[in-house]
Each structure stands twice: as C-alpha cells, then as structure tokens.
C-alpha cells in the first residue's frame, strides 16, 4: 500500500524520461552511421606526458630541474647594469636615454613603447642561480601596472617570466569628505609616482623569495619585452640572494648595541589612513563593527582598510608613523580574516627592509571576530623591533604563504588530469562506444599509477590542511571527495572510457582552487606600535555592544534612503537620475557630477541606484510603472537597448534630435551605433556602453599542438572542425538555445550581414529574412549545429581553460575573465576579430552586431534641457575616459568600462595588440534597427533554428514560416501606430500567399 503514494510520481518521471529517451535514441541511431569516432587504428601506446602540456615549466619545476643539474644559488655577487646600457633595442622608435630623471641621475632609459624589446648583457663569474632586481619609475600611461617579460639568452626559463609586474604607486587624494546625508565620500585615488627598487618575483606572491634565474659563466643576454605600460629604468641588478637575518641574530645585535625597551608608549595608526599602496583598489572600506575606530554610528564610514580587495599576491600597502624616542618596540595589527578558513599571509617591511626573516610570512588566522595579531613568536612573545626616534614607514605585502604549496600541487594535478582526459579521447574519440573494450589503461601505461599518485597526494594534503587550520577546511573536504572519485576510477579501469567527463569535472573543480587559494583578504582597523610593557587594546566587541549596534542599525533602516547616493537635494530643483549600474558605479558618477558638472552648469542632480531589471525594456519593469504613474525620473543611465524605441513609439521619451547640437554630439560614436535609437526621423537615446563578440583561441593548442592558424573565414572554421573534433575538442559559437531569446539575433547576425543580408527592408516595414542571402546565412548558421554538431550549450571560459574548447566566439567579457581568472594561460591565448565571409574582391567581411546600453530622457522631465546637458557631459570623451579609468581603478579590471565613445575607448588601458583587435572588429560593427514589432524577429529566428537543428526541418520552410509570422506582427504593430499599410499585401499575408521575395516587391512599390 505504501507503494500507492510513490507510484504516480515515479510514473510521471519515468514517462517523461522514457518518452524523450526513446525519441532521442531514434535520433542517435540516425546519426550513428554518419559519424564514426576516431577508431583504434594507428594508436598503440601513448606516453601520457607527451600530451600533458606544451606550456613552459612553472617556476618550481624549472627550479627542480636546476637542482638536478647541480646549479646552486651563488654567493656574494652584485652587478649593476645601467638602464641606458642596453645592447640592442627593437621597436618602432628609438627610446630616449636621459642622464637625470625625477631626482636621480645615471643613464636612465625612458621606455615608452609597448611591444618593444630591449636586451642587456651581463657578465657573471660562475654558472649558478642569480636574482634580478630593477630600479624603475612608472611613466604616465593608462594607470595599470607595467608588465615586462624576461628572457635569458633568448628563452623564457619558466612560465611566470612571461608576466612580471612593476607596480605603480598610489595614494588617497585626501581625507574623506562627507555628503549631506552624513556619509563618508571616498577620496579619489591619485598616482604618486616614485623611484622603486624591486626584486623580480612572482606576480601572484606564490614564493617567499624572489625568482632565481640560471646564468652561465661569462656573458648572458637579458631581454625584456614590454607587454604593458611605459616605465623608466635606471638600474638592472644581478645579484646573489641574501636572506634577512633571523630574529635571534637581530636580537643579539640589539643587545650588543645596548638598545633598551621603551616604556609607556602606545601609538595607534588608523589603517584607513594609508600612506602608499601598489594598487588603487586597495583602499579604505566601510566597516560596521562597534569597536572599529572611528565608529560608524549608522553611517557609511571609511574606518577599515583592505578587506577582500586586498587579496592578490604582490599588492602592497604602507603606513607612516612617528615614534617619540629611540628604542625597542613591539607591533600589533588589529585585523579581521574570515574570508577563508586558512591563514592569510602578509610580508612586513619597515622602512623598506625586512627586519628579520620571521616577518617574511606573518599569519592572520581565520576567525569570525576581530583579533589583535601581534608580531611575535608562537609562544605569544612579541618580537622586539628597534626604531629610531622619528618617522617610519611600515609596509605589508600580500603573500600566498603555505597555500602556494597546495596550489603548486593542484596545478600539476590539473595538468595531469587534463593530459589523461585528452589521452583517453585520443584513443577512443569523443563519443566512444560504451560497449567496446577499449582498455585505455593498458594503452596508456602511466594512467593508473598517475591516478594513484594523485589520490595519495590529495589525501595527504587534505590531512595537512586540516591540521594546519585546526578546524574543518572546505578545501580539504573537496580534496577528499575528489580522492574518493579517483578511487572509483581506479577500481574499474575497464569503464574508464565512459567516464572521460570525470576528468574534466575534477579538473575544473580543482582548477577553481588553483585560482581561489591565491587570494587571501584581510581587513585592518589599526596598527599599534607600543612599548613592550603595555597592554594591547581590547578588540572584540561584547555581545551587548553588538546587539545594541545591530538594533540601532535596524531602527535606522526605516528612515534611511538606501537608493540615494551622495548628496540628496530635497525641495530644490534637481534632476533625478537613475543609474542601473551597481552602487560603486553610481558613487563614482555622483562624485564626478558634484565635482565637475554641478559647479560648471549650476544643475543639481540626485542620483538613485536601481537594479538592472528596473530599466528592462520588455518586462513589467519599474521604469514602465513609474512612467505610467507619471513618476519617472528625468533621465536614466544603463538602460536596455530596446527601451528607447519601445517608449518612443508611445511618446514616453524625449526626442533628442530637436537640440541644435545633437548632430555634433553623435560624432562621438560610430555612425551605426545610433541606428537602434532612431524611429521615424527622431532619435531617442545616446549609446553609453557597447559590447560585441570576438574570437578567442589558445595559441598553445591551435598553433603549436595542431599547427593550425586562427580561421579567417567560416570556410576555415568548417575545415578546422573535423581536426578539432577528432581530438575530442570543439569550437564554441553562442547558440540561441538558452533562456535569452534576444541572443538569437546576435547569433545569426554575423552570417546574415556577411552574406549581404539584413533583418529588415530599408523602410523597416518588412522582414528581409526571405531573401536568398538570408537563406544562405540561415543554412550556414544552422549547419554548424545540425551537421557539424558543435555544442548547443557550454561554459566557454571553463572549457577554454581545460583545453576542450581551444577556440570560440564570445562576448568580450570573456576577455576580462580570461585575463583575471586564468593567470596560468597568460600569454597563451589571443583575442582576434571573428571569422567572416570572403567577398568577391578578396576582402573579408566580418560584420557582426552586438548590444549596447543607453542614456534616455523621459517624457515627464520638467527640465529636459538640463537633462540633455547632463547627457552630453556624460557621453563626452573626457568624462568617459576619466570614468572608465576611475571605475577600473576602484574595482579592478573586472569593471572594464566598454564605453561607446570611440575616442574614449582608444584612451583605455588595453594592451596594444588587444586594442587593435577590438578596433578592427568595431569597424565591422553593425546594429540591428529597432522597428515596430521588432521583438518578433529574434523570437521566430529561434523558433526556426529550433525547428531545423532539433527537429530536422527543412531550413527554407522553417525560415519562410518565421518570415510570415514576423511580417504579420510587423504589420499589426504598424496598424496600431498609424503607419499607412498596403491592404492588399496584408490580405495576402494573412492568407499566406506572400511567397515571393519581399525585397524585390517592396522595391517596386516605393
């Protein structure tokens, strides 16, 4: 009887599954004959490690090799090379060498040019391992840190040598000010360029010591290649590694010199008042703990420092303080670290020197509470540090510490897993017959031993981490789980070919930690420099203090305006601006308005943050409801591309072409960019940002492993596909099989435009998808999925990293992802314009569409002229450039502002090669016009795609059906908005008679 309740549920599910499985099996049978996976012929034994990677070794691997070769760190060497003493320089312009720059003299090289290469010669006394250092000064550029890669005797000795950073120096532009709501306004971040000396080390802080380079006895070549940003180089230093002394040794010298402990001194340095930092995103933060100084009292107060923004290896911050008398002090840091349940590590320097070895890795253990981290030994005794009377600078740098060991292990494992996955696919093909006995573990002799090794490594590491952290560690659990999964693979080696996906799954799971473990955020409240006899201040708030604070915050929440940003003008004439970007974005916009716009024009602006969905065109969005009730703002930024025309046809937005300087303003954008905002001769919005697809590919796989060139045309793509698929790899093209119907037009766009087709006839009254060009385009497009069987859906970024999809087309947000979240690929991928169609004259048409966001003025605005002023100011080159810089400086490369202003875009800190690729593609940017009833085009394009790709319908019929549906809706909407229509055409349309090419017939009518 108990079955009674369960049965129906199971039945339903089973029914659903069975039906679809049956249908699918039919489908699968149908194509089995056509597609044979690469058979067993030709492949015998595979040496796993041939396939593991073509990347250079990582530093620790290179170091291990040197050890084997008997290369040892040298002693007592210090050689200085002048920056201007290079032996060769390869660039477009000869660089300038000056004898004096910013207060220092010498032969200083002013290296302005990107992509240029310079070489120095250094003569060393013996074979061995040396470290390199550089005295440099950043030059005015695009505000990013400079990058150089280093070759020794023409070779990258390890992968990390491709991305060495030389940071700029930043400081706060002043003390925080307050807005009229009593909240702190963040000071701007200003560059404070100065001469710095830096030993060349890991850009991610993975190693405690600087990098060693292997040099031969005699003359060696050191070659630097400028990948980003200009710098001035005064000296390049080649020397032996000298570690700082230990605390014991230092203490002994203190005692010898007779230094005494000071008495009764306690100096508190508020961490938010930092002196210098290497990165503008590392800055003061808003804190709410009751004991944080100064207290927030229900306002936004900048009273903490760092946090999650201060997490990346190499980010430094420093503080200035003055001690009243010379003597021995102790130092404590009030910090908060609940970002990860493993300790975070910082290196501490005082006046530019590490006082003793123990301060190279100071740990901030995990805790849900604020804690006083004393610089001292494990027994709780503070280290004594000698400070002269007067000013000092304390600097902290993010180091990865113990995690680096885990990361290196994972890194190797991930590469091995990737190699194994690829080796298996190499034997079995991407879709192996599950019933065949492939015996992959016999053909790849290393397979099982490697799996066993990985399993043991993971288990050992999990135990080590658990012991270290003294509590449950999420990472350790993941390791144990993966070890378990590997055990499962080992237990049943004959089924390995059915579990290829396990390899990539484990790979991406562990790969996540390769990246994630590098980061370790710490928030600081203050630093205390005190006499050893003094007590540390209390740092943990009591229960009642916290309760009181939370109660206050709760009460406060009833009257606080959370959407307003900065100064709020009540009862005054002020523009109401909605910003559909995040709060941080709105804050910068507001600051810039207060700083530049209001003083110049006298127009006050109230800024409100609204979520993206509030300005959606096609939804019950807040903006729609606000407009309907007459409560719309004056203008909005970041609105959906489709909204302006949707509102314009109903008289909801202001026609900006009425203003006399409109023509002039539009020259800021590419001509095609205004197309989606035009309706019946009027223009209703200005573009703000834009985005389009680019092609990304892995150079190591495509060029080196497969010996292919990036495809220029779709024919090239089709030619390359079998090569890829044979090896279990694939090409990525965004399909419309997702939840977002709007993507359909962007997906079809390139094919359509490149074949000379278009979405609508010139008058915008009929669909042009029935033209022969459109049909060709549609065929090619659906063919990719239906016949070439590229995946309908995939996470391109992840599979690019694993190498399963070494090439594909994606939004250029992928650029941001790859450059921030895939450091291991640095230098191994490229972004290029998308493939096109070769035209009769031999050129390649690469046209494609994209999306943009817009700025609009609403009908109910009382001050449309003032709103227009603001709109002009906002889209101007200077403002867009500055905004893009500030927002990227504030939030990081993740917030790359892809401005629609062409000149401003050119000013942005893109590496030269990438900028060129984007500009090349931008030349081909083509917008789809927004016409009456436009939303039906993507909808029915998806339907047609669906019918062809998934149901195997004839493309011509599917497209004809789509065109008919689109045309009916177009004419329906035209009728609604009083466009004069051709009654005869309409009758035919509804009877389904219109079959001939509408392009030719409509041409005739006009």
């Amino acid at each position: 009887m108990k079955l009674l309740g369960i049965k129906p549920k199971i039945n339903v599910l089973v029914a659903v599954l069975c039906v679809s499985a049956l249908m699918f099996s039919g489908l699968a049978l149908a194509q089995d004959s056509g597609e044979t996976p690469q058979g067993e012929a030709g492949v015998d034994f595979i040496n796993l490690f041939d396939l593991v990677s073509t990347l250079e070794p990582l530093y620790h691997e290179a170091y291990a090799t040197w050890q084997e070769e008997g290369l040892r760190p040298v002693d007592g060497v210090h050689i200085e090379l002048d920056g201007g003493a290079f032996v060769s320089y390869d660039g477009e312009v000869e660089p300038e060498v000056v004898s004096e720059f910013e207060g220092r003299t010498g032969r200083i090289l002013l290296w302005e040019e990107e992509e240029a290469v310079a070489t120095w010669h250094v003569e060393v006394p013996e074979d061995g391992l040396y470290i390199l250092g550089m005295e440099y000064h950043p030059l005015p550029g695009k505000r990013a840190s400079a990058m150089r890669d280093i070759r020794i005797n023409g070779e990258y000795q390890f992968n990390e040598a491709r991305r060495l950073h030389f940071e700029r120096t930043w400081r706060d532009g002043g003390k925080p000010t307050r807005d009229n709501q009593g909240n702190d306004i963040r000071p701007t971040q200003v560059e404070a360029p100065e001469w710095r000396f830096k030993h060349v080390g890991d850009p991610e802080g993975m190693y405690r010591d600087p990098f060693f380079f292997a040099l031969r006895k005699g003359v060696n070549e050191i070659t630097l290649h400028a990948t980003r940003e200009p710098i001035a180089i005064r000296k390049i230093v080649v020397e032996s590694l000298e570690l700082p002394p230990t605390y014991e040794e230092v203490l002994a010298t203190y005692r010898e010199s007779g230094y005494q402990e000071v008495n009764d001194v306690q100096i508190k340095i508020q961490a938010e008042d930092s002196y210098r930092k290497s990165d503008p995103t590392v800055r003061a933060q808003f804190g709410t703990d009751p004991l944080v100084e100064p207290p927030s009292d229900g306002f936004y107060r900048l009273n903490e420092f760092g946090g999650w923004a201060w997490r990346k290896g190499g980010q430094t911050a420093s503080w200035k303080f003055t001690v009243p008398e010379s003597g021995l002090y102790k130092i404590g840091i009030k910090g908060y670290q609940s970002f990860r349940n493993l300790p975070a590590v910082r290196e501490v320097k005082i006046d530019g020197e590490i006082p003793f070895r123990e301060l190279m890795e100071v740990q901030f253990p995990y805790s849900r509470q604020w804690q006083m981290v004393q610089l001292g030994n494990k027994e709780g005794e503070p280290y004594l540090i000698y400070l002269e009377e007067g000013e000092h600078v304390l600097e902290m740098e993010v180091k990865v510490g113990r995690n680096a060991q885990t990361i290196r292990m994972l890194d190797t494992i991930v590469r091995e897993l990737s190699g194994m996955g690829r080796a298996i696919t190499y034997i079995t093909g991407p879709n192996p017959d599950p019933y065949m006995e492939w015996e992959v573990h016999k053909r790849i002799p290393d397979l099982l031993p490697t799996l066993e090794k990985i399993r043991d490594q993971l288990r050992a590491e999990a135990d080590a981490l658990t012991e270290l952290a003294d509590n449950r560690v999420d990472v350790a659990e993941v390791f144990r789980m993966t070890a378990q999964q590997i055990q499962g693979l080992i237990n049943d080696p004959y089924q390995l070919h059915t579990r290829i996906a396990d390899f990539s799954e484990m790979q991406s799971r562990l790969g996540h930690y390769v990246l994630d473990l590098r980061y370790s955020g710490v928030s600081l409240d203050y630093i205390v420099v005190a006499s050893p006899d003094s007590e540390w201040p209390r740092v943990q708030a009591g229960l009642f203090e916290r309760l009181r604070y939370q109660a206050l915050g709760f009460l406060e929440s009833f009257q606080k305006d959370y959407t307003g940003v900065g100064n709020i003008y009540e009862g005054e004439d002020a523009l109401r601006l909605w910003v559909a970007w995040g709060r941080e974005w709105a804050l910068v916009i507001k600051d810039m308005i207060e700083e530049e716009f209001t003083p110049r024009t006298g127009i006050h602006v109230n800024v409100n943050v609204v979520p993206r969905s509030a300005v959606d065109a096609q939804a019950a969005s807040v903006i729609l409801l606000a407009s309907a009730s007459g409560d719309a703002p004056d203008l909005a930024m970041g609105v959906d591309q489709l909204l302006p025309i949707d509102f314009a046809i109903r008289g909801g937005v202001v026609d900006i072409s009425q203003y006399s300087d409109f023509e002039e303003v539009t020259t800021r954008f590419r001509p095609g960019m205004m197309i989606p905002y035009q309706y019946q001769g009027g223009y209703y919005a200005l573009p703000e940002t834009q985005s389009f697809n680019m092609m990304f590919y892995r150079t190591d796989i495509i060029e080196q492993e497969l010996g292919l060139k990036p495809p220029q045309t779709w024919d090239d793509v089709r030619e390359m596909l079998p090569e890829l698929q044979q090896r279990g790899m694939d090409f990525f093209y965004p399909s419309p099989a997702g939840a977002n119907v709007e993507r359909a037009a962007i997906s079809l766009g390139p094919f359509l435009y490149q074949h000379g087709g278009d979405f609508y006839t010139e008058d915008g009254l009929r669909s042009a998808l029935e033209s022969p060009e459109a049909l060709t385009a549609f065929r090619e497009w659906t063919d990719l999925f239906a016949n070439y069987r590229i995946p309908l859906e995939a996470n391109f970024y992840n599979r690019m990293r694993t190498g399963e999809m070494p090439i594909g087309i994606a939004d250029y947000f992928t650029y941001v992802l790859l450059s921030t979240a895939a450091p291991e690929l640095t230098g191994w991928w490229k972004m290029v314009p998308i493939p096109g169609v070769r035209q009769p004259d031999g050129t390649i048409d690469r046209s494609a569409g994209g999306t943009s966001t817009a700025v609009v003025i609403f009908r109910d605005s009382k001050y449309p002229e003032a709103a227009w002023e603001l709109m002009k100011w906002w889209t101007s080159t200077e403002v867009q450039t500055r905004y893009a810089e500030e927002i990227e400086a504030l939030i990081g490369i993740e917030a790359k502002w892809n401005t629609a202003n062409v000149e401003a875009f050119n000013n942005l800190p893109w590496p030269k090669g990438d900028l060129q690729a984007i500009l090349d593609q931008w030349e081909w940017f083509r917008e789809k016009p927004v016409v009456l009833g436009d939303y039906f085009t993507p909808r029915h394009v998806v339907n047609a795609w669906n019918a062809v790709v998934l149901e195997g319908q004839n493309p011509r019929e599917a497209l004809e059906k789509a065109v008919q549906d689109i045309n009916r809706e177009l004419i329906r909407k035209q009728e609604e908005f009083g466009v004069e229509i051709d009654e005869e055409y309409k009758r035919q349309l509804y009877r389904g008679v219109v079959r001939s090419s509408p392009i030719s017939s409509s041409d005739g009518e006009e």
Partner: protein
Amino acid sequence: MAQANPTATTQAQVERLTLSMRLGETWRQMKRHKWGYLFMAPFMTFFIVFTVAPVLTAMYLSFTYFNVLQPAEWIGITNYRLLFLEDDIFLKSLHVTVVFAIMTGPVGFLLSFAMAWLINQVKVRLLYTIAFFAPSLSGVGMSAIMRIFFSNDRYGYLNNWLINLGILDEPFPWLADIDTMLGVVIAVQLWLSMGPGFLAFLAGLQQIDDQIYEAGKVDGIKNRMQELFFLTLPLVKPQLVFGAVMAVVSAFSMFDISVGLVGFPSPQYAAHSIMAHLYDYAFLRFEMGYASAISVIMFAMMYGLSSMFRKMLSAKDE
C-alpha cells in the same frame, strides 16, 4: 394617461419612500452590528482595494486599447473578438495550460494527498515533512538549479548521468527540444508545488482523532484501504477542497518556472501558458487592453474550475 399621472407620481413617491425606509433600515441594522463591521473593515478594505478593484479595472481595460504610457481608449469587444477568432497562439497556450493543469493539478493534488497520507503513517514525520516542503520554500530560485540539472550541455546532471550510463552518447537538449520542454516544466512544477497542498493535508490528517479510527475498527473496518475511504477522506474534506483550489490556481498561473527553465517566450511556444501569453502582450507588446481581456478569460476559467471542484467535493455527503 393624464389621470394616471398623479398615481404614477404617488407610486414613485411610495417607491422613493420605501427605498429611503429600506436604506434607513439597513443603516439601523448596520449601526446595530457596528462591531461586526468594524472587525470586518481591515480585511474588506484590503480585499476591495487589492482584489475587487483590480479585477474591475481589468474588466474595464479589456474593452479598451491601452498601451500603458498613453490614456486608454474605448474599443468595445474588439479585444475579445481578436482573442477568440484570430489568435492562434492563444489557442496553443490554452492547450499548453490545460495539459499542464491536468498534469500538475489533479495529479499533483493526488500525489500530495498520497504523500501526506503515507507520511502520516510513519514515525519521524518532521524529517519527511521538511524534505517535501523545502522545494516550495525555495521557490523560483530553484529553477536556476533545475536549469543545471536539465542543462542542454554535456555537463548537465541529467545528460551526464545518461551519457555515463551509456543511454545517450551526446547531450540531449532537454530545455530546447519542443517535445521534452513541457515535460520538464511539468516535472519541476510537480516537485516544487507539492509543498503547500501536502502541508494542508498533513495538518488535516493529524487533526483526526484516534478515537474515530478506534470506533471504526469496532464498527468493522477491516483494512487501511477501508479506513482511508470511509473515515479519512470524509474527515479531511475541507483540506481537500483547499488543496484542489490551490492546485488549479497554481497550475493556471504557471509562468515563472517555465521562464526560468526554457526562457521567454519558449521556443516554438512549446511551453507557452496563458499566463505567458498574457505577459507577452502586456509587457513585450505593451497591449494592456488585450492582455486584460486574456486575464479576464483566465479569471473566469479559474473561478469556474475552482467552484466546480468545490461542488464536486462537497456534493458527496450533502
């Protein structure tokens, strides 16, 4: 006629008089029961403002052309004419909704009752209750997870399992194929929506006094089946009615889940419910008048169905 005039006047006067008398009487009655009205007032206010008024507004708007941003314009029954005579997609959506309603309404209703009944028999009720109720708590956010489960990609759970088991050899697009789309939406909806009805049943079942079952045994009930039909079902009738109405209402207003899973509008309208159709006209095409007409039809259908259910279930014993 001339003579009739005075009489007519009188009659009118009388009518007016009686009317005012009747109004006066009502007023007196109301005054007498003022406490009753006072206690009813909060609910009535909200009910009128947020339920009655919108329904009436929608009815009015369904006879107009209204594009949200400009004033509404009276166009008579045009909207209804178009809706029934020319809108193919409406018929399609009606079909989808009916299939959906049958699968999730009655089936879901029976399922949740059966589940409640089964769980009521076991000892650790709380655990099961939470397990069954949790999905409906998580609501629409769950469709994001379900999207991963049914993903069209090779790494979607379902595809991955089926590929590992050797049933499929390349990923099947569950959420894009028009033949499976509705099935997936129904499965997810069943799983999500069982919660509330199930909870009501469980509460009902737990209210039943054990003495009744004991008395039943004395009167000759032989097995659990008889117990179910003769005692349990009649006793939980109020919960049954509630559950039925809930099931129908939720089946008809199905929208969020299908949007979350297969997008809006769904490919080839394969999971296009009436609600989706309404949304399409209201917020994509800004044809509020037409959308109101759809909503009025929907309202009528929902009202009719739920009162039918109520009648069916209450007819048994009266």
